[in-house]
């Protein structure tokens, strides 16, 4: 099909600009097209979204073909398969950065940044409400002298009513393992991932620097996070301000505690579940086994795998800033994922990321998957902690 398009004028200055912001990362691409064939957008749209074209144009100094640039969820499915090792998601984020400079960003992302600016979190909630989820738990303020680790709750688990249950579950698990820990309470700063994910590198770095300073001043060594995205920020974007700074996702910590005999998950939880790999644990950090091992260690849990698991897991659709925008019905990756989970005969999809839970719960409802629950690893593990009353199953159905 012949398509006429505006000729791209090759401009040295533009090319240098793109090379600089991407660190020349697009250069090795030889236009094979595996990325385009792999990208999940091809599953939900009539045509594939040509990532190859985006990268090719970046090589020539073009600043980013609008649509693909903002569709990318940074799931890394393409990146893991690129024969030339082009860090595609990083190139895309860098091109987004240029878009901000040229004021070509999607206008609704401006209010995301302003919300972060005025409120210090992407949810538009005041700092004074950040610890409402912990009412009655008497959580101590983190002290490096007294505590083994900092539990970094994160904005989503602090403010989102559904996700607050994860934070409470993690607290009971840490207490169940006898871990001494503290939190930063109302002063817990945002990690900056929402801003980074839409490409505003400078502002994200500012947030990261400020939060890193808070950690440094508090003498934070080991820090565990609820969200894989916060974990990713700390692991990849934050400076190693001290030898002892050790960011972990909570699943890594829980598995360490189980292996070390400190955490016993021995109450039976009779459920057939399937595990969905969040992109920011799986493909981004190769954390595939720990969540599964935690589930496998719970008596009564029957773990069945979806066809696409681990490196092949389908993204839920929320990464790359898409958590903060609307995805049209019929174009949601999580609808496909929910269906795939249904085909395993599992009663619940278990995952380890708030964004995935959010998308999957939505999809379960809209695709009418009767009775399928969506749970976090922490929620399932917490069930294995406490002794259960007789009507436990009915109760958990509502909790």
């Amino acid at each position, binding site marked *: 099909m012949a398509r006429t398009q505006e000729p791209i004028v090759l401009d040295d200055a533009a090319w240098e600009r793109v090379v600089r912001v991407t660190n020349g990362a697009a250069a090795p691409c030889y236009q094979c097209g595996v990325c385009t064939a792999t990208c999940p957008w091809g599953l939900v749209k009539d045509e594939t979204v040509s990532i190859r074209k985006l990268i090719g144009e970046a090589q020539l100094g073009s600043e980013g073909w609008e649509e693909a640039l903002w569709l990318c969820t940074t799931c890394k499915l393409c990146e893991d398969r690129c024969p030339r090792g082009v860090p595609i998601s990083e190139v895309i984020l860098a091109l987004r950065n240029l878009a901000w400079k040229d004021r070509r960003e999607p206008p609704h992302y401006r209010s995301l940044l302003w919300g972060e600016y005025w409120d210090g979190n992407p949810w538009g909630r005041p700092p004074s*409400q950040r610890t*409402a989820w912990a009412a009655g738990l008497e959580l101590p303020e983190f002290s490096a002298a007294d505590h083994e680790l900092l539990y970094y709750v994160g904005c989503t688990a602090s403010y989102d*009513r559904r996700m607050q249950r994860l934070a409470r579950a993690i607290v009971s698990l840490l207490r169940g393992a006898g871990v001494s820990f503290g939190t930063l309470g109302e002063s817990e700063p945002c990690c900056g991932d929402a801003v980074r994910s839409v490409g505003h590198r400078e502002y994200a770095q500012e947030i990261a620097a400020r939060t890193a300073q808070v950690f440094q001043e508090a003498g934070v060594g080991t820090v565990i996070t609820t969200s894989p995205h916060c974990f990713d920020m700390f692991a990849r974007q934050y400076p190693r301000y001290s030898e002892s700074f050790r960011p972990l996702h909570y699943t890594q910590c829980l598995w360490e505690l189980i292996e070390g005999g400190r955490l016993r998950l021995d109450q039976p939880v009779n459920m057939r579940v399937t595990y969905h790999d969040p992109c920011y644990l799986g493909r981004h950090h190769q954390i595939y086994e720990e969540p599964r091992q935690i589930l496998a260690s719970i008596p009564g849990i029957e773990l069945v795998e979806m066809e696409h698991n681990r490196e092949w897991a389908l993204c839920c659709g929320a990464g790359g800033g898409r958590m903060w925008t*609307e995805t049209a019905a019929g174009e949601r990756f999580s609808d496909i994922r929910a269906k795939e989970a249904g085909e395993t005969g599992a009663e619940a999809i278990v995952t380890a990321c708030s964004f995935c839970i959010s998308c999957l719960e939505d999809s379960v*409802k809209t695709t009418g998957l009767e009775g399928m629950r969506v749970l976090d690893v922490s929620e399932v593990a917490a069930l294995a902690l406490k002794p259960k009353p007789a009507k436990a199953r009915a109760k958990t159905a509502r909790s």
Partner: protein
Amino acid sequence: MFEPLYKPEEAHGIWVYLEQQAGKLEGVSLELLGKARELADQAKVRLTGALLGHKVGDLAKEAIACGADEVLVADDAVLSQYRTDPYARVVTQMVQDHKPDIFLLGATPDGRDLAGRLGVRLRTGLTADCTAMWLKEGTTLLEAQVTGFGGGITAVIECQYHRPQMATVRPGVFQAAEPDPARKGTVTPVVVKVPQEDQRVQVLERVTREGADITKAKVIIAGGRGIRGDWRLLEELAALLGGEIGATRVAVDEGWVGRDRQIGQTGLVTRPDLAICCGISGAIHFTVGVEKAAMIVSINTDREAEIFEHSDYGVVDDVFQVLPALIEELRKAAQT
């Protein structure tokens, strides 16, 4: 202080600006006549309507039926459409000639546009968006209650030394009196002199349509961000209950509904017997427009949503699950 144009002792009578559009008096003007009639009876002073426009004579009669003792009519082609400068010029002349004590205007966009200009031209006090007003015992000093800070704070405002005491009021705050066609009053034409320099603004187009008047609705079904632009269930519910659709500012900004249905601080104040709020977080800029409802039911998936603090019954669940069930029951009951 600024030198008042005339002193309180020289001022007499209560005035209401009779805003008209497309040959009809604005509802808020009739509501103001209703309230002003009360005040005028209490203080035993005259109630005068100030009517500007072109070929608007009939409207004067309507104003008298609704409570005016006199209507001053400035009828001229130059006033056929509202423009700040000609209207401000004519009203200023009227005020200088007659020296009213109190002057009330409806807080429509044009009303506020005019009032704001007049407040300065007349070097007097202007109180915006009054929610209540009364006269200080034994005097004609107007005490006007307003809210601020999104409705969280109330204040009472006075204009002691300047005249006219000006105030604007939003549609739906007061109630119009039942028109009494037998009421007598005088209609006084006013000479219109609008110099060329006041005609500097050109109206290229003006498009209005008679929208819904949700300020009169007994039942309001309101939708916000949470219904994601899907109004079908709300419309069904409204039809079953004989209600009107209302919306938050977000819904209007998104283009889902017109401004005529916007409820809240920068929208309309409603006073239904029943308001059902769907997918609305309940920020104060919205709730001030619905808090006079006799009963408020809210549906929102967020347990922390502020709306539940302002509701009688709260449903923490999905609108798209709850409404179908509710509609089902209502349909069944309607058929029995």
